[in-house]
């Protein structure tokens, strides 16, 4: 072969291997310091007394001897179970309407059904107080029962957990094999039997997974019970009360450990189910298409739009409440609640902080999480490290926000911790939020990466191209839709979350969601509603921008995605 003009390799392989190892170690360090060590610090704290001496399980003994605390376990379980039944039932019917009927306006319904995700969980609670509270227009519907307590909690949680369940069940019900239904029809099987023998078994994994997701979200939620729980205490509010109200950090740690258990349990069950769920559908499955059936279609349309109506009513109530002088005595229009002048919570500064947090988490989190998933999925060597990283990436799903936030106090606020300087900065809020919502983004990344040809990296290596070039020129552009999904997910969650960050802000880093809490606590209900609406609108705008951007990008990418 003639003397090659293309012979100077740009990167020496040993350097490349070294860089690969360094970033892998950095990724592991991120989750060790951002997740494992704080959790460990919390476990240790639950076994210490106030002066920091080891006292074994004495705190737990004390916990179980205090009826006011133990009651919360039963309360939490009751509320979570009820919410699970309500949400899963409704979401199943609506998902069935979307996927298995010809009901009109499916797209509009799906858009409306997503709205609750864009609001902090505090928003429905505030609206419910306006609707069913002592001054509420619909108070009489409750027939003398108070909205403050388990009824309000279940209603508020159902509102904001509903979209999660709907998305999971829609996905599960979309996978169908028309051939099975045709076979059943050819055999003269009645409709109800087809449903029991084909439809239900087909979605059983999705359904079980949905039940556990809903249950976990319900038992760990803090926002709804905080606003509307009244005297009805649950585990999440107990953590807050012990730490913020009574400065009893040890007992806060004990409640956290107890709160961790159902979440870890449902995490384990969910993982176990995911493992068993191997391609139920063969590649040759023919998707089932519904045929029009007016009675069924309109029944489901009625049901779905009732649900959509309730969603709009709840959001609309918050918007309305934020725009009038003083419910219910002075209904004239005003924008004064949006000035937040002289009130608790930090006002527009808090909103700016939230924006800063959300953008930082979206930017940093997307890159870090996607790149880490790439390291796990697409690189060779250091198998134990990569497996350990994957395990740690799955863990945050099992850690409730309250627990993670408290764990951060224990770890980062320790005297003598070299990372102590982080405490009270925006950086710790970014780190905490990134870790808090790590798992879903990780799974989205892994799914996107698994769809790529497994040989891209091998081709790059054979052409002597360093791995970061192949990552930036091929892997990242091809996975762009998933990457955008991750970034908007992180943005919205950073905007709306309250549970973890409620322990970590300081006077310079107040957040909008925490401001809602404080405005409500201080009795400025209209301003609390205004702040919640502000968060909702911010998320909505970003979500719409994301949709538009995705649309444009996909249109451009159409050049190579489709033939042409």
């Amino acid at each position, binding site marked *: *072969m003639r003397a*090659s*003009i*293309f*012979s*100077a*390799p*740009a*990167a020496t*392989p040993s350097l*490349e*291997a070294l860089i690969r190892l360094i970033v892998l170690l950095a990724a592991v360090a991120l989750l060790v310091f951002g997740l494992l060590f704080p959790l460990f610090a919390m476990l240790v704290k639950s076994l210490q007394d106030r002066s920091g001496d080891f006292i074994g399980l004495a705190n737990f003994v004390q916990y179980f001897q205090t009826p006011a605390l133990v009651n919360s376990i039963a309360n939490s379980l009751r509320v979570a179970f009820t919410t699970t039944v309500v949400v899963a039932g409704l979401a199943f019917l609506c998902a069935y309407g979307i996927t298995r009927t010809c009901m009109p306006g499916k797209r509009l319904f799906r858009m409306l059904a997503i709205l609750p995700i864009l609001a902090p969980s505090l928003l429905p609670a505030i609206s419910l107080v306006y609707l069913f509270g002592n001054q509420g227009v619909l108070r009489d519907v409750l027939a003398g029962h108070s909205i403050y307590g388990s009824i309000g909690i279940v209603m508020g949680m159902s509102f904001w957990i509903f979209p999660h369940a709907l998305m999971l069940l829609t996905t599960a019900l979309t996978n169908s094999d028309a051939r099975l239904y045709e076979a059943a029809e050819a055999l003269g099987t009645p409709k109800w039997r087809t449903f029991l023998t084909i439809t239900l078994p087909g979605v059983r994994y999705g359904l079980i997974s949905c039940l556990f997701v809903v249950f976990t979200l319900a038992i760990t939620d803090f926002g709804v019970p905080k606003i509307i729980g009244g005297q009805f205490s649950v585990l999440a509010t107990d953590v807050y009360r012990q730490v913020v109200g009574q400065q009893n950090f040890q007992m806060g740690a004990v409640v956290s450990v107890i709160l961790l258990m159902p979440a870890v349990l449902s995490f384990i069950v969910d993982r176990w189910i995911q493992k068993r769920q191997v391609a139920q559908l063969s590649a040759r499955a023919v998707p089932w298409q519904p045929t029009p059936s007016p009675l069924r279609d309109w029944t489901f349309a009625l049901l779905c739009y009732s649900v959509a109506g309730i969603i709009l009513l709840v959001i609309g109530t918050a918007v309305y409440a934020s725009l009038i002088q003083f419910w219910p005595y002075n209904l004239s229009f005003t924008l004064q609640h949006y000035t937040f002048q002289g009130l608790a919570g930090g006002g527009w500064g808090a909103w700016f902080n939230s924006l800063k947090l959300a953008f930082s988490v979206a930017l940093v989190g997307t890159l870090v999480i996607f790149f880490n998933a790439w390291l796990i999925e697409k690189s*060779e060597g250091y198998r134990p490290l990569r497996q350990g990283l994957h395990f740690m990436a799955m863990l945050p799903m099992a850690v409730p926000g309250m627990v993670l936030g408290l764990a951060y106090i224990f770890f980062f606020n320790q005297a003598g911790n070299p990372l102590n300087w982080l405490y009270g900065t925006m950086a710790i809020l970014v780190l905490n939020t990134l870790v808090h919502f790590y798992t879903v983004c990780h799974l989205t990344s892994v799914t996107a990466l698994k769809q790529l*040809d497994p*040989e*891209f990296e*091998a*081709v*790059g*290596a*054979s*052409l*002597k*191209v*360093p791995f970061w*070039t192949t990552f930036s*020129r*091929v892997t990242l*552009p*091809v996975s762009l839709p998933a990457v955008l999904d991750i970034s908007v997910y992180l943005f919205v969650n950073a905007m709306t979350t309250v549970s973890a960050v409620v322990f970590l802000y300081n006077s310079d880093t107040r957040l909008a969601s925490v401001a809602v809490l404080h405005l409500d606590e201080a009795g400025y209900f209209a301003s609390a509603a205004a702040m919640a609406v502000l968060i909702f609108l911010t998320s909505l705008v970003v979500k719409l921008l994301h949709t538009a951007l995705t649309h444009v990008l996909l249109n451009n*990418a159409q*050049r*190579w*995605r*489709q*033939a*042409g």
Partner: protein
Amino acid sequence: MQTTLTSPLTAHSAAKPLSPSAHLSIDGVTKRFGSFTALDNIALQIQEGEFVCFLGPSGCGKTTLLRTIAGLAQQTAGSLIQRGKDISMLPPQARDFGIVFQSYALFPNLTVFDNVAYGLRNRRSDRAMIDARVAELLALVDLSGSEHKYPAALSGGQQQRVALARALATEPGLLLLDEPLSALDARVRGHLRHQIKALQARLGVTTIMVTHDQEEALTMADRIVVMNHGVIEQVGTPAEIYHQPASAFVASFIGTMNFLEVTAQANNHALLGTISCPCLPHVYPQGQAAQLAIRPESVALSASTTGLSGDVMGIEFLGAFQRVSLSLNNTEQWLLADVPSRDSATLGLRLGQTLGIHLPADAARLYPAGSNQS
């Protein structure tokens, strides 16, 4: 490196290594996945400029061996020497090879030009040189004018050729092809087979191709490495592999082969039922059970029924010849014989007919009884 800058090679059966110097020496390479041994002590020399095929059924270890050569899989033991340099422990980036995968692995978001230039860009060659090189490569694979298309707009065969151009762009010393044709339909496959072979002969680049398709291996390779269960069964030219299979496995895997149960006899004979047939020299002691292998096209049929004979139980029309299934008369065994179409008229071939059978000694080979067949 010497190149044969001539038109495509037509015959390959006589192909000899173009140079006595070894391009790649594989020595004692073993690869285990847990308790499973994918490669067992593989030793092989590949000469400069040679086209070698790894052939075998799926799971025989051929792809693992290719990936080990590329550095995409790390061997458990053994060494690899490429042009005198020990590459055993080097990562893929530090080895000198280009690779084409079964899936092509073309970058979907890059144009044909950018795909081919992918390895050139990195070397900071100047733009004009890259343009010229890409144009040259696309001309080589008959795709001039497709520079600005995206892979999704190309047919499977075209995508495969882009992958080939991309692999050749950086002038690797070794070209690795991992089942490059198996995703294509039969007609394109035949055409591309010829094109790849011609290209390889022109460039003189040492090439290793993995395939499970024996026809592909026979038509393209200078030498074939037949593998089974992680070991090399035989290395040889296509003619050697076909005519002198080293084991019953190779005999059965390549082409069609009759296996008859016989008893070995002295003086290079074998007892088939009650009839003693001459065969190629063998080492089996008198009286030992063995199997006699003979290709259907070597079996001669005649009207005279003295000696070995059989009844025609089936006739399959295959165009140029007819494949006749015979039930042997003095032993309960079956035999396939290929009769050229013009001979079948002379024989008056029909079902139920009894025909004399001659097994030429130079085409009858003995293998151990019950030995491995595919």
